[in-house]
């Protein structure tokens, strides 16, 4: 798996496994630029130029991946808080590659298939190393 020498392999792997859309990428970068600020869905949707429905999908999947935390004491707000230092470091690398090579990274994100259905076929592989 070599991605034309522009995107390092671990970064490419992280993007393929954890980032489903450019909107998600932009959301990560936006919240990361100000890690103390807590964002509401409306604010985020406005900044990202996407619908609130789409924004909710983005933040909930990023929370599930341990990149954002949700503050649920009132109306839900979200903050950048990666679950581990390694995650934070990897995201920093991703952000750097993204800022320098926008087109290859967006192409990589868009090359992901829309469904996981390949995993159905993969389940029939008898050996554990898939």
């Amino acid at each position, binding site marked *: *798996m*070599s*991605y*034309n020498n*522009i*995107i390092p392999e671990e970064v*490419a792997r992280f993007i393929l496994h954890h980032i489903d859309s450019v909107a998600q990428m932009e959301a990560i970068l936006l919240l990361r630029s100000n890690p103390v600020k807590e964002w509401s869905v409306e604010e985020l949707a406005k900044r990202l130029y996407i619908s609130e429905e789409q924004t909710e999908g983005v933040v909930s999947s990023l929370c599930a991946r341990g990149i954002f935390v949700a503050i649920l004491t009132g109306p839900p707000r979200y903050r950048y808080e990666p679950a581990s230092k390694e995650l934070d470091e990897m995201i920093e690398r991703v952000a750097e590659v993204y800022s320098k*090579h926008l*087109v*290859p990274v967006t*192409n*990589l994100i868009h*090359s992901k*298939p*829309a*469904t996981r*259905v*390949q995993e*159905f*076929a993969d389940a*029939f*592989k*008898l*050996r554990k190393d898939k």
Partner: protein
Amino acid sequence: MDLVLLGAIAMASLVAGLFFLRFWKDTGDRFFLYFSISFFVEGLNRFALALTSDPNEGRPLFYFIRFLSFLLILVAIIHKNLGKSARAKPPVETVATRRGGMVK
């Protein structure tokens, strides 16, 4: 009641076969093609059974065809485990097939 169920199962099998056909188109993995044909065959088999005068008669032909459809599934599994020949269509173009970051 039996005929209704038979027809419903037949239809559901055909629809499942259609979905698996779609998965084959989406992923290029021939595994799904085998599954698709298997479900299509079983769907048509059940339709044919429903058209007989006594579906519960137990004519061997229908069970033989079901046997074949399961064989097809086993072939799919064997094929998946035996090698890299699982792709019937070329994979979609990815970043790996582009050079130097330039979009084609």
